[in-house]
């Protein structure tokens, strides 16, 4: 206490009280609770009901989860461990099943020694997509490239990929990643080649089969460009040329080239596919094909040419009026009656075609919504500048319409990816039902019910949530107009 004024002033405050936090009820968690959960009688009632439901759920599932067993050789052993640890009558999840059979959920009946091939195909997918999906953000792209590279190598090594394969993988992936970074445009060409490389990795056999299929596309493209000034006629000729190539020349040429330089991987047949390898193969192919097809259908449906418009409407409405399962049955059973006897049209390919057609019809409607959402002035400005129909669509209309449609497009993708589990009905081994049933049918894991579903569901969730997050990232990145 200082004494300078002590005589003149009866009291002087010298030490300030420290600032107090606001009364408890006015701030922080309590205030939030009061405002959001207990603001009125109805709100209080809903909150209590919600809490009750959470309580019941946790009560029902909680012990089962917390008592889960990860190390056991069979269902019976699991039950025994649960009973010993938590007492008679206690329930517990038996995730030991996942630990033993994870590979079947992921790879189906794919030969174990070749697991690295689907893994590599999946890793390369990200290299192929990076220049498309992360074209503007160098940082995001490098993260994706780096992760794809490292994870693919590590996982392949863990899965016992042979040394030479690992080395080749490392070289190829490093080279490709460097190409993406240094020369983005040629890298897009590499992305176009990717589907053929992936098909070769997945199904194996002679590289020349895929190479000749690719050559057919290349030839069609050359014909089309060469005759571009004849318009639609050039396109028709290109299709004919490519078809002739595939039907007449591709087979013998591939055989001849294989004789000269055999580039073979051990073949894996379609009925060995299963689990997520199957789902992702169908899903990725369906997604990649249904987007362009959906765009074409949407444009056709808005076309001024009545024939084209009517065809598009009929196709879209027909497909949307029929359940996917029906289409899958058509793919698996009916097509066999129509195709000439002896043709061996791969069942996975047939399913991919049907899934693509199905998703494309929905995609077309989503994109049509985006096209309709664009102001008429955009079309007029493009016309006034002398851009022709296709250039206007490609440079002005579609970039904006697709941007508006991103949420719908990604929803369609996600829906389609989950729908790939329906292939179980045509005898393919989807991860959810067919693989789970197969594993349950074994002596050791008889009686496991929820565990396979939880595991498969979790993987589906991660993949779908990833797509959904990417779509949000993309929307944010493309948000240029502050209108």
């Amino acid at each position, binding site marked *: 206490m200082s004494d300078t004024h002590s005589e003149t002033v009866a009291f002087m405050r010298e030490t300030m009280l420290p600032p107090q936090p606001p009364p408890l009820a006015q701030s922080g968690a309590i205030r939030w609770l009061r405002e959001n959960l207990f603001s009125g009688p109805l709100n209080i009632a809903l909150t209590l009901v919600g809490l009750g439901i959470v309580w019941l759920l946790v009560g029902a599932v909680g012990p089962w989860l917390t008592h889960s067993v990860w190390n056991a050789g069979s269902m019976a052993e699991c039950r025994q461990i649960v009973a010993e640890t938590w007492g008679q009558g206690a329930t517990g999840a038996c995730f030991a099943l996942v630990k033993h059979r994870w590979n079947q959920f992921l790879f189906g009946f794919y030969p174990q020694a070749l697991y690295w091939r689907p893994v590599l195909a999946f890793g390369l997918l990200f290299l192929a997509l990076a220049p498309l999906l992360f074209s503007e953000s160098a940082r995001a792209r490098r993260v994706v490239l780096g992760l794809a590279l490292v994870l693919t190598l590590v996982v392949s090594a863990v899965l016992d990929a042979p040394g030479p394969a690992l080395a080749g993988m490392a070289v190829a992936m490093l080279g490709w990643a460097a190409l993406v970074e240094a020369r983005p445009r040629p890298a897009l060409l590499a992305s176009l080649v990717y589907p053929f490389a992936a098909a070769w990795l997945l199904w194996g056999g002679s590289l020349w089969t895929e190479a000749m299929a690719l050559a057919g596309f290349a030839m069609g493209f050359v014909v089309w460009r060469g005759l571009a000034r004849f318009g639609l006629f050039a396109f028709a000729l290109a299709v004919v040329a490519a078809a002739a190539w595939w039907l007449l020349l591709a087979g013998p040429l591939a055989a001849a080239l294989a004789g000269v330089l055999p580039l073979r991987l051990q073949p894996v047949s379609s009925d060995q596919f299963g689990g997520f390898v199957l789902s992702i193969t169908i899903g990725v192919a369906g997604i990649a094909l249904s987007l362009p097809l959906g765009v074409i259908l949407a444009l056709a449906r808005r076309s001024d040419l009545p024939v084209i418009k009517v065809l598009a409407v009929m196709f879209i409405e027909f497909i949307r009026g029929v359940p996917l399962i029906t289409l899958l049955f058509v793919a698996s059973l009916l097509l066999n009656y129509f195709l000439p006897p002896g043709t061996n049209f791969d069942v996975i390919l047939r399913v991919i075609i049907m899934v693509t057609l199905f998703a494309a019809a929905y995609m077309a409607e989503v994109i049509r919504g985006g096209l309709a959402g664009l102001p008429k002035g955009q079309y007029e400005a493009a016309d*006034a500048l002398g851009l022709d129909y296709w250039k206007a669509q490609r440079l002005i209309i579609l970039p904006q319409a697709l941007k508006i449609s991103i949420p719908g497009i990604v929803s369609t993708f996600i829906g389609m990816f989950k729908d790939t589990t329906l292939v179980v009905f045509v005898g393919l081994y989807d991860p959810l039902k067919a693989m789970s049933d197969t594993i349950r049918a074994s002596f050791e894991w008889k009686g496991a019910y929820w565990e396979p579903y939880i595991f498969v569901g979790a993987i589906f969730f991660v993949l779908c949530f990833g797509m959904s997050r990417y779509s949000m990232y993309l929307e944010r990145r493309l948000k240029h107009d502050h209108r």
Partner: protein
Amino acid sequence: MQTTAIPAIESDAAIEIVRLNKWYGTFHVLRDIDLTVRRGERIVIAGPSGSGKSTLIRCINRLEEHQSGKIIVDGTELTHDLKNIDKVRSEVGMVFQHFNLFPHLTILENCTLAPIWVRKVPRREAEETAMHFLEKVRIPDQAHKYPGQLSGGQQQRVAIARALCMRPRIMLFDEPTSALDPEMIKEVLDTMIALAEEGMTMICVTHEMGFAQAVAHRVIFMDQGQIVEQNTPVEFFNNPQSERSRLFLSQILGH
């Protein structure tokens, strides 16, 4: 400004419109329009709302199709022939009431897109041209922004620059200032006046009388799809001939 002498080169018409008629369904929008625009001539089209002004100038670059009569732009007749339409469109620039910039492209990309894809100009060169015209409309420093980040007046000046990048011989303006706040009208009109001073052939739908007096050689008054009256700006504003133009002028100058 009284420098409204019509250019003397009689021979070559930039635009020739002969007995043009257009219907929307049964609605007769344009009735027997005859109009010849000489090279370097500047025309202002005025008239009440719904009189067919926009429709008329949109017929000139075939944003609208006409049903009878002839439209010849720079010697090319507009028919169903797509080649002719493309040719005309690449020579005629258009500026819209609502700018119609491409919101997903930067200002520079807006300006280089058509030269690169339609005229096949190398990118580098297209960018130089674009910067040249952006400087002309006095917004070179916004080149890397997106349209949404610019004010209305700036957007409209970009729209003018974008049209100019195609090196058009004729410019059409459809009420370029009527979507703008008053304080931005002047900057756009100044740009248009500068363009006029360079001798561009211009057809402007506008109610900016000051602009018409300053640059137009001729004012055309339309009502109910017809050209009711045409005259020099001085004559038109001071001494309108028809009852309808008098009424119209009293309405727009009245308040």
